């Protein structure tokens, strides 16, 4: 309960300061925010937009939150998502003759696997060389951006007549994910995934190992837990979720891989994960919030003439307030509980721990 109150307060404070910035630049916060809300929830089409934008966010939020449980900072969700998207697209347009019931899951799996492998690289680097996953995953992000750019501009380019943009051909219908009313099936999948993660982390022995490694890796080794294996597996699974998110985006929304469909540096995943206090079920409302902001932002730009980047600023502020939680606690007079699982991240660059 306390966590929910803290998260809501963080969002409200961020919106408040965002309003301040809007005022400063001569815009009307009321006009902007109401356009934002309308663009996100105003009608069925808006809802669909919101859900579409939220779907990859749930996946990357889950990816980051999951990694956090093992004390790992997977900022690379963005790159893993991109790779997942393009690999899924490749399977989607490149593999012919399969029935939908096989093709779509195959493409999903391919995308998930791509993300998983990419993240596992960072995990292995950490385990065997001590390289901190923050920098390696950021670097891998840039590598992924370059790689997908090359593929979309080169070997996998859409060569249909009239196309000059860097993108892949459309995926075949058999690879597409259905939409049920305004709800993309990918969104439903993400909810299912959140439930699976919850079960994994708190009901299984593997989850116990992950959380132990995250809270105290010395005690984990003392207890016989294989820390290296746990770290690599955790990154692998984290990357799997991110890659899956990319695949879902390709197969459920865009229909192909197109660079720029999800520009951002993966920082949203972090904001969402922390807003959700790294709890899988919390990720869903947090992702909906950020997704709503993204969906409504074009409306806000169009109607209230406010550049949509204001939502990036608001997200930064949310992250700030949620991270400064002891500040918020003082504000709300809530005491910290002795046993709360802490987010233990920065222990230096760790070369040779």
């Amino acid at each position, binding site marked *: 309960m306390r966590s929910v109150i803290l998260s809501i307060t963080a969002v409200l404070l961020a919106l408040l300061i965002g309003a301040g910035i809007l005022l400063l630049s001569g815009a009307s916060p009321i006009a902007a925010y109401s356009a934002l809300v309308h663009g996100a929830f105003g009608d069925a089409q808006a809802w669909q937009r919101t859900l579409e934008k939220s779907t990859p966010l749930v996946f990357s939020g889950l990816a980051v939150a999951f990694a956090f449980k093992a004390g790992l900072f997977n900022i690379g969700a963005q790159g893993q998502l991109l790779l997942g998207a393009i690999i899924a697209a490749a399977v989607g347009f490149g593999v012919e003759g399969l029935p939908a019931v096989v093709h779509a899951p195959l493409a999903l799996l391919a995308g998930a696997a791509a993300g998983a492998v990419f993240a596992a690289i960072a995990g292995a680097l950490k385990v065997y060389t001590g390289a901190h996953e923050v920098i390696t995953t950021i670097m891998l992000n840039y590598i992924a951006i370059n790689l997908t750019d*090359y593929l979309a501009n080169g070997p996998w380019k859409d060569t249909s007549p009239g196309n000059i943009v860097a993108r892949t051909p459309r995926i075949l219908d058999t690879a597409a994910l259905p939409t049920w009313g305004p709800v993309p099936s990918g969104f439903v999948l993400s909810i299912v995934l959140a439930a699976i993660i919850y079960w994994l982390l708190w009901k299984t022995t593997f989850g116990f190992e992950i959380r132990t490694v995250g809270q105290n890796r010395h005690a984990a080794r003392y207890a016989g837990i294989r820390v290296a294996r746990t770290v690599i597996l955790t990154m692998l699974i984290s990357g799997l979720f991110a890659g899956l998110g990319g695949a879902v985006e390709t197969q459920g929304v865009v229909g192909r891989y197109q660079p720029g469909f999800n520009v951002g540096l993966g920082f949203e995943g972090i904001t969402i994960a922390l807003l959700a206090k790294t709890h899988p079920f919390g990720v869903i409302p947090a992702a909906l919030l950020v997704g709503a902001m993204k969906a409504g932002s074009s409306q806000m730009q169009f109607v209230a003439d406010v550049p949509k980047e204001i939502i990036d600023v608001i997200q930064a502020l949310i992250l700030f307030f949620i991270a400064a939680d002891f500040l918020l606690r003082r504000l709300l007079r809530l005491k910290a509980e002795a046993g709360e699982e802490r987010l233990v991240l920065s222990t230096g660059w760790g070369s040779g721990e």
Partner: protein
Amino acid sequence: MNPWRTLWHYNRGKVLAAAALVVFVVWAYTRDPQIVEAVLASSLRLSIPLILGALCGLIGERSGVINIGIEGQMLLAAFVAFLVNVYTGNLLLATLSGMLVGAVLGFFLAFMSVTLRIDQIIGGTVINMLAFGLTGYFYQVGLVTKGKFAPIPIPGLADIPILGAMFFRNPPLTYLTLLLIFVVQFWLFYTPWGLRTRAVGEHPRAADTVGIDVYKMRYLNVTLAGSLAGLAGAYLTLEAVGSFERAMTNGQGFVALAVMIFGRWNPILAWGAALLFGFATALQTQLQFMNAAQIPASLLWLKQIPHQFIGMLPYLLTIIVLAGVGGRTRPPAAVGQPYVKE
């Protein structure tokens, strides 16, 4: 121990490799002086934001604070410097504004890390996100600057073969940066302030018990270091490019962290690393622009590589560096841990 001796002792391999590289460059110069000079000058230009970012990072880390927000500091500083240049045309003012912005963000990071004790990586992420958001929000297309810094050749020195083109025909901010490298080295290892800074980063409680104010040291260091990141941003827009584009820092703030680690938190070594990274990129770009006839056969294959893979190079190098190819690295012992006075 004399820091120079320590340098040599721990980095024999790298120093020898650097010497080999120098020999290669001299040989290449005899084959085609113009191209070599162009590549070298370009290497230095590319290395400037990296070394400034690395200096910013290492000053902070020496005092115990991790800063992954260098990218954001550079970007926002570049933006503000650009705006000041557009509206006043005063390059000096623009440079100072950029440095101020870097310092303000540095202060904010110090506030988050030292006072609020937010996880330092998250703090750096907040800065990055804020910078990207604010620059995106306030950016307007079509703003035009009245000019940028021009090169100032130093008479006499500018004519020295190889080194002259590289070092002595540069615009002012580049000269300033080269000077700063040595200033920081001196300050960190030869002054009481530097001693206290390093103490605070190694064992803050010990420093506390001899009466050093750990919080104040960290605040001052991180804020001042921020001005260097700000200078890097100012350099990008006022000297290198001459205008502003969204996300123009393009990850250099993160590569700067690798430069810092590669350089073992030592300004002079970090400079070597920055030059190396700059050289790799400059060489590749040069090969792209030359036609096949000019390139010796043994290097021709370099031209075939798609440009995106060249783009990946700094990031790959960073990962390799971090993976400890070149020996395990030893950061300041207390880096990343918030200090709590009991």
